[in-house]
């Protein structure tokens, strides 16, 4: 499975919370960031957790977010960021995305 997003692509984290084993923290759901790197393909941990050893390999990304976008009351420097590792199925392209395939 080749990665859908390139480095530099603008992505939004899906804002969903299905009952299950979720590897995306609550605080980052719905937030917009930029792909910092493609970490490679890994078996889907949300399926591995239920014992499916043959879970599909899916691309994992490191996505960079601006702190002041995530926390409305953030009072640190404007350029502060946080990187979160997210699986591709948690990400969708944004309207300003020129890089999405």
């Amino acid at each position, binding site marked *: 499975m080749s990665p859908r997003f390139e480095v530099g692509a603008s992505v939004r984290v899906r804002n969903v*919370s299905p*009952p299950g*084993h*979720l590897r995306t*923290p*609550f*605080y*980052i759901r719905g937030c917009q960031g930029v792909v910092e790197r493609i970490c490679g393909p890994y078996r889907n*941990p*949300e399926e*591995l*957790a*239920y*014992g499916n*050893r043959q879970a599909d390999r899916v691309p994992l990304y490191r996505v960079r977010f601006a702190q002041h976008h*995530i*926390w409305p009351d953030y009072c640190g420097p404007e350029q502060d960021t946080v990187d979160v590792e997210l699986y591709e199925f948690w990400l969708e392209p944004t309207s300003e995305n020129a890089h999405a395939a």
Partner: protein
Amino acid sequence: MSEPFPERSHHDLGGLPAGPIPQGEHDYALWEKRVDALMVLLTKPDQELMTVDQLRKGIESLPPDAYDRMSYYERWIYSITQALQHNGVITTTELGQKLEELQRRPASSGEST
């Protein structure tokens, strides 16, 4: 109307108010080191008896009060126990028999430093 299930799991604390984080070093008890070593052996690629993802799922499935009450490695051993039973590596009966056997031992045996 309340949600039928929580959007945010109890363990998922990122961004919530919390107290200061203890920054000091601390020692681990022998049983805690054993639990850690057990997990290494159970997840060896050539004879994987459970996955680290199963470990996480078991920990994150704990009821909130149990999650808060249990220590880090207590959560681990609870989850390892659940996963090994789910995967058919051990049975509940075997586990019960072993626990009974251990309870019959003199209190001092089995402990070392």
